[in-house]
């Protein structure tokens, strides 16, 4: 009965890892040059919705793959990514649970505590959105550049396990708005998500 998990464990964990990276979406608030100030501004956000367009640049493919949909964040710990194109699917992160629902209606739930590496991804993204610097720095080396009007935060994974998948996450924004999230993958491929805020509180 237990054996069935064995083969899936790495596949799914990597799935989730990838997934969690893609969750990096948000509609947050402004900052100045220091990480502390940025976090403080981001932390004031209570909730927000946005649309996203994501492009994946993959070496094997001639053109990037594009997907789009909606994002919703509710402080302190709920994040939803609803992909509408090309295939409807959704991911909801709530508390320590990650729920996936696919177009055929099948669902799966993952407890973050069971998957430390997924937790690293997810926790860091959520930490960014809720301005939780401590949580962020547990998993990443944080480097901030630019001004409040146009800032860029580079996250470099600390865990070797994660370094094998993602070499860097670049989050750029203006004031309290996160505009783009870019994932530089270890194999050279990358993805870029452009976020347009539709409402924020």
């Amino acid at each position, binding site marked *: 009965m237990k054996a069935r998990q*064995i083969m*899936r464990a790495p596949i799914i964990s990597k799935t989730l890892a990838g997934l969690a990276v*893609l969750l990096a979406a948000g509609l947050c608030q402004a900052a100045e040059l220091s990480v502390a100030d940025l976090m403080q501004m981001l932390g004031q956000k209570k909730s927000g919705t946005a649309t996203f367009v994501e492009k994946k640049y993959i070496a094997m493919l001639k053109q990037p793959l594009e997907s789009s949909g909606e994002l919703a964040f509710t402080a302190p710990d709920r994040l939803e990514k609803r992909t509408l194109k090309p295939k409807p699917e959704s991911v909801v992160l709530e508390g320590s649970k990650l729920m996936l629902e696919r177009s055929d209606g099948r669902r799966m739930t993952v407890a973050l505590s069971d998957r*430390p590496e997924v937790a690293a991804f997810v926790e860091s993204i959520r930490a960014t959105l809720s301005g939780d610097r401590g949580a962020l720095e547990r998993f990443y080396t944080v480097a901030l550049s630019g001004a409040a009007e146009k800032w860029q935060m580079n996250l470099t994974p600390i865990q070797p396990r994660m370094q094998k998948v993602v070499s860097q996450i670049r989050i750029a924004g203006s004031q309290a708005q996160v505009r783009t999230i870019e994932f530089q993958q270890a194999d050279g491929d990358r993805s870029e998500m452009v976020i347009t805020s539709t409402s924020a509180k």
Partner: protein
Amino acid sequence: MKSRHNKLALFVWLAVMLASVLVIAQTRFVADLSAFMPKVPSARQQMLIDQLRDGAIARIVLVGIEGGDEAERGRLSRLLVSRLAHNPRFTSVQNGDSKTQQRDQLYFFNNRYLLSPAVTPERFSVAGLRTAIQDTLDAMSGDVGLVVKKILPRDPTGETLQIVDQFIGESQPRSSNDIWVSRDGKRAVLLLQLAESGLNTDAQATALDDVRQAFASLPQRHADTRLVMSGTSVMSVASRDTIKSEVERLATLGTVLVVALLLLVYRSLPLLLLGLIPVVSGALVGIASVSLGFGHVHGLTLGFGTTLIGEAVDYSIYLFIQRAGGNEPGHFWRTIRLGVLTSITGFAALMCSSFPGLSQLGLYSISGLVTAALVTRYILPGLMPARLNLRDLSGPGLMLQKGLDFLTRMRWVMAVVLLAAVAVLVFHQQDIWSRQLNALSSISKGQNKLDAELRGDLGGNDMRYVASFSAPDQESALQLAERSRRVLQDLVRQRVIGGFHTPDELLPSQASQRARQAALPTVVEARQRLVQALDGMPLQADRLEDFLADVVRSRAQPLLSRQSLQGSAANVLLDSMLIKRPNGYLVLMPLQPIGEGAKGGEIALDKVRATLERQQLGQVTVIDLLEETTAIFDSYTHEALVFSSLGSLAILLLLGFTCGWMQAVRVTIPLGCAVLCVVAIFDACGIQLTILHLVGLLLVVAIGSNYALFFANKQQLGSEAEQRQVEVSLVVANLATVTSFGLLGTSSVPVLSFIGSTVAIGALLALVFSAMMARIHPRAHHS
């Protein structure tokens, strides 16, 4: 004449004893608890429950390593795996390391074209390829993109995803530093599969010992690290060991206590030995009869042997004490005969029970008691010295009489106690019947908690809902499983069930494998179609040479068999779903509930059944094991209630016919009160009654009637001195019974302790109430 009779009796007795010893020498003794689990009415349900108890699932051992730090636990986990990996007593040893995981991944990835249910000729046409590849690209753009990207060059149609799909929604063991750890991370966990089935408890015990020894001898092991194990085999070995040691302890202690009691009363070694003759004879004949009747003797039946000591010794106690008082034997034997008859009536009711253990107990007690009574009647008098040098019991006798007189005057107390008992039963709202099957299991709470924890750690859920069928051979079993899978998939889509597993996910039928091979195109066809299919897509055909190579290889590869899975974790899963039986195969397909909402933990089985029926899959049975076992248990409690009531009624009728209805009522009232009070005491203590308590109550009636009979028997009353003898013998006999059953009550095996405590309390109360009620007050008699 008389002496010739005696000689004949002696000869018969010796012959029977010899025969019994011979039978016992050939007897197989068993000690698992299954005899005290109800037999299930339908053969299929029995088969399922047997599977869970003895089958592949029961071969799984969950192991945890605790203490030390994470690095140390990880080191020990790896070392333990390397120690046990080549031990033939284990068919699988896993700790979640990447080596084993890779073996499983490779099995699924390399054989994906034979394993994927999606492989059809249409899928490998131009249109089919285009759709499949587009789906894969869509998946790549979505949330699981990172994984899909990896398989794209070799698996652009996403067959691996189709296979992985079947496993989505399962909880998985948590990994840390490449090995499985518990949810809280404080324990390294491993999964073992034993080679021997649950039927061979000895072999399982040896294998479990191997694990313990291997762990104990790991080099440089920190002293504070420890090994914990759970699983059906661990529990059955543990409960067997408990039963073994309990039976030994009880037999020894019971003998010592009764011997001490008799020595105290008799103060004579010859009398003591004589007194034990009926007991030993009864025990030997009892064991031999069970052996002949059932083919084996359960250890617990032996455990009850101590109680037989308590009852059988009564007869010789009555005989010696009353003989020493010079009582008229004729009346005496009549009372004994009646006592034996009432006891037999009670035990005969046990023989009708559907619990094999209880019917063994019934046969054992009946044959044992009859033998003890016959030996007391026909052998003992001949062996007894003409003049019994029993110590003078008139001193204690007088004191006892005063006490009993007092009790008789306190008759009103009985009414009060009775009222109190009724009040407890009426006002205490708890259900007096326990519906928990595991109330009878001798597994400790701590062990159960550990079991639940380890199961949680390894991500296994309780096997509650099972769809199952049997088939004559493996191929037809797998084909039927494939048909069932399609129906179950629909049920998942309709959200009737949350998930399921079928054996063909791991090993498709040969027919399906061949059909899938036939569906794969040749390399020339494939290349051609691929170029057309990829027209206008962001992927180029020349990037997919590895894919073409894999398709070509899969077309010609040997079909998968059970051997292909050897050594993989998937094999453990397959073993639990595709089970070889003497005449065919049994397939167990676990169903998972939706797991959300108020009734998320339950499956509407009628819907599942109806759907299967509609799809001509009526031979697939779906059962809820929890409900099934609870219902069975209820029906057996009901059955026990009926046979206990009938047994009690039979005893009452017997008394009525032999000594008149007034007498019968006098005897019955104290017994009824004793039973009611025992129930009230348990209820007040918050103990829920099980079928075994009920059996205990029946024994209270059967044994207690002896006391009441002696008290109430008019013919036996002679002088006050004679009555004192009767009373002393009654009290001594009662003490022997209460002692032996009370001892049983202290057992850690619930089966023994439930009956023991019930009878010990009940027998004592029966004596007191009989003294109050049934006893004819001497002064009243003389006036």
